[in-house]
């Protein structure tokens, strides 16, 4: 059941984006903005805000963008055949590498932000730093400091 509801959520998002966006996008920049508002808005609300896709709070976040991209790649592969897929392989690899670098950089910067600020994120289901991540980062930092025998994290009597 859990797999089924994730599957349906991802599948609907992928199909709507890949069928409608390319035609709205042909109207230029503002067609793209319109497509982002009328497609990504509701699909995000359904898949991630209501959490139809069932991303767990302590699991790595799987965005619906993955399903959308696979849907677009497979749409053209089914229409044009496997040879067309291999011509696009360089773009797929480069975008994947760039995304991995972007994710690593974002995580690095978020860890740096967590050192200084109080945590303010109240909703755990968004793509972004979550409370559980914050607690884990804090624990890890405490452990390092304890290993170095620095007493900074003395507990306050009342919080």
């Amino acid at each position, binding site marked *: 059941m*859990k*797999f089924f509801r*994730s*599957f*349906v959520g991802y*599948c609907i998002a992928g*199909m709507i984006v*890949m069928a409608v966006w390319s035609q709205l*996008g042909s109207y230029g*920049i503002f067609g*793209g*903005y319109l*497509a982002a508002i009328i497609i*990504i808005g509701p699909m*995000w609300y359904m898949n991630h805000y209501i959490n139809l896709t069932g*991303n*767990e709070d*302590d*699991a*790595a*976040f*799987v*965005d*619906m*963008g*993955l*399903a*959308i*991209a*696979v*849907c*677009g790649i*497979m*749409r*053209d592969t089914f*229409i044009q055949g496997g040879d*067309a897929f291999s011509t*696009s392989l360089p*773009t*797929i690899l*480069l*975008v*994947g590498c*760039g*995304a991995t670098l*972007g*994710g690593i950089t*974002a*995580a*690095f910067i*978020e860890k740096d932000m967590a050192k200084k600020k109080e945590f303010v*994120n*109240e*909703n755990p289901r*968004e*793509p*972004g*730093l979550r409370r559980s*991540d914050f607690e*884990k980062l804090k624990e890890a930092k405490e452990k390092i400091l304890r290993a170095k025998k620095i007493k900074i994290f003395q507990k306050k009597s009342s919080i």
Partner: protein
Amino acid sequence: MTIQLAIATLIGGFIFPFVIRMAWGRMVDNWGPIGGWMAAAFIVGTVWCINHGIATPMITQSGTVWVDQGLAAGVGVWVASALTGGSKRKSVKNIVAAVSAGIVGGYVLSLFLVS
């Protein structure tokens, strides 16, 4: 694809998950669910402009199969989430669901989008 275009494609893939990770969650914190619509319009829409919308887009399509910036979002947000303490093993179910949903959805689209 030349080396210049390859570098641009790499950086195009970098930008999207980075901006999502930095801003999307905070927008929802500040404005509630409407923040999600704002993020959809002004993160996805704006980054779409540079990656796909302009005349010579940042993500160069080397072949005839459409590679969407959503691939960058899926991969990058997952990597960042895994590095900040998310369990990789628990997310396998969702990854399998997303990939199989994409394949089935692509097949369904190929039934009626034949030009």
